């Protein structure tokens, strides 16, 4: 291989390669293994100086209560296991600039008073928690009042068999913590997969959160956060979002959240947010919205849900554009007549209109709220008459002579074909030209 590097490029490349070692380069490395001079992680951590690296090489260590009180890199090689044997918290971080990487941490007992976790920090900055496996703990990662955090590529697996929700903590729990990156984690078997309370300016990407007893992701009072490319599957309910503004949720998948009061996404008192390119598949309710305003809900797929969207009358100025509604029992349901939201250019598989001028937009407006769905909202047991002759009759009469359904909940320009979100841009232009609308 003869590649003609310019000196400049070489220096730059070298700098980049050495960058991750920045902290390590100045400290020494303390090794922990069965035959090393350190046979316990705690010993080595205590003996280390600020900026050192503690390298744990294989083996099982029956330890808990490891306190990291200086800038340190704690790295596991060859899958070392720290087993707390249910004797309390495993790692407490009491310093800034700490990295914990490549360890398996297990067995932390339920403790209502201290909320014990595998890794815990309070009031710290610049922590990196990478590539760890956390098994059978009460809380997995518990951070409070901290900032500048990376939680990446960890697996957190709780034991939720025969346990009540109260005796289970959350896999990743953040409280008053800002500027966080949570990515590539696999969290399951806890109460909430990812719990954020008062967390600002953070990114949650590429995580898989499944089989949790309550929510896959749960956040409250957490403004200006971005959630993309996550999958929330088979949780008690998918995602609950409350009392928050400026949320960006894109390219997520919400699926298989079934149950009497279950939903893919619960929005309560959310403002000025964007929900785009998500998939809602096989949920009892795709999105349940209350008191949520100025949301842009665009280019999502709602497929085979019980209710695709339940939008309560307390929601104002929400826009639903270019979404696909396919195979849902009810497309949209609401609880009253007043309606101040905007539906435009969605594809509804239940639409039976026609397109005489061949502009790919139906010539007849579509009203997605059926009378029967209003009835079910008011009298839930009437759901047992679903697909009965009387119900169909009632719905069809109502379609011809609308008197109960909200008049303004209407898509004036329903699409004739399912929308392919990938070449969405072209399509939008076509639609705009056709509609003669100025760019909205």
């Amino acid at each position: 291989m003869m590649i003609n590097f310019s000196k400049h490029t070489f220096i730059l490349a070298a700098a980049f390669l050495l960058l991750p070692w920045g902290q390590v380069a100045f400290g020494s490395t303390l090794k922990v293994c069965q035959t090393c001079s350190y046979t316990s992680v705690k010993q080595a951590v205590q003996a280390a100086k600020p900026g050192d690296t503690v390298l744990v090489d294989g083996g099982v260590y029956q330890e808990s209560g490891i306190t990291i009180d200086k800038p340190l890199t704690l790295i596991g090689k060859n899958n070392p296991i720290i087993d707390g044997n249910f004797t309390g918290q495993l790692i407490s971080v009491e310093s800034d600039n700490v990295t914990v990487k490549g360890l398996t941490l297990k067995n932390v007992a339920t403790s209502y008073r201290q909320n014990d976790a595998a890794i815990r920090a309070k009031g710290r900055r610049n922590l990196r928690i990478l590539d760890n496996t956390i098994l059978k703990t009460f809380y997995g990662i518990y951070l409070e009042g901290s900032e500048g955090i990376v939680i990446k590529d960890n697996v957190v697996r709780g034991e939720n068999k025969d346990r009540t929700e109260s005796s289970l903590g959350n896999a990743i729990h953040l409280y008053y913590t800002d500027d966080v990156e949570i990515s590539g984690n696999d969290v399951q078997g806890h109460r909430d997969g990812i719990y954020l309370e008062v967390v600002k300016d953070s990114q949650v990407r590429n995580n898989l959160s499944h089989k949790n007893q309550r929510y896959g992701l749960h956040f409250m009072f957490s403004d200006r956060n971005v959630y993309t490319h996550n999958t929330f599957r088979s949780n008690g309910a998918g995602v609950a979002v409350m009392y928050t503004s400026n949320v960006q949720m894109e390219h997520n998948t919400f699926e298989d959240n079934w149950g009497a009061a279950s939903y893919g996404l619960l929005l309560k008192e959310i403002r000025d947010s964007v929900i785009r390119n998500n998939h809602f598949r096989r949920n009892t309710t795709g999105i349940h919205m209350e008191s949520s305003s100025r949301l842009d809900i665009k280019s999502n797929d709602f497929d085979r849900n019980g209710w695709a969207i339940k939008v309560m009358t307390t929601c104002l100025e929400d826009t639903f554009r270019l979404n696909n509604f396919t195979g849902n029992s009810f497309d949209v349901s609401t609880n009253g007549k007043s309606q101040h939201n905007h539906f435009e250019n969605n594809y509804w598989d239940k639409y039976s209109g026609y397109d005489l001028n061949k502009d790919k937009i139906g010539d007849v407006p579509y009203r997605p709220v059926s009378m029967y769905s209003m009835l079910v909202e008011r009298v839930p047991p009437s759901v047992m008459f679903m697909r009965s002759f009387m119900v169909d009759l009632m719905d069809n009469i109502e379609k011809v002579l609308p008197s109960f359904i909200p008049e303004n909940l209407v898509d004036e320009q329903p699409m004739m074909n399912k929308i392919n979100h990938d070449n969405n841009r072209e399509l939008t232009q076509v639609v705009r030209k056709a509609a003669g609308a100025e760019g909205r």
Partner: protein
Amino acid sequence: MKLLKSVVSLLFILVFLTGCSVEPRPIPYGEANCAHCNMTVTDNRYGAELVNDKGKPYYFDSAECLAAYVAEQPEVGEKAAYLLVTDYLNPNELIDAHSAHFLQSEALPSPMGMNLTAVKDEAAATQMQQEYGGQLLDWNQVVLAVKNDDKFQ
């Protein structure tokens, strides 16, 4: 036939009798949704309950949600047969909200961000206040704090 009739009437009477008693019900943790915020009620140290004058129970995930519900609909609160919160020191035990002592302390985050912990026993509440800091409130002060969204920080 006679037997059938008597069995049916007995069942009917049973259903009728059990369905209408006005009394507190244990909170079905993990199954009920909070009547105020719609979240699943899971934490058995914080659950709350309102039983209306007809005996219908409403469940809440926290005292602050019960307080918010009552603050938004005062007539419901006044007519309620029971307003109940959980004694933090005895999970699953419901106590009357009006006689409970509430510790509002940042050291004890509650489910909905108001940091409220209900305790039955006054001495225990005072002791917890010494341990965790914060302030002690009674029910009316809690309702007021929720109205003003006063997180005490």
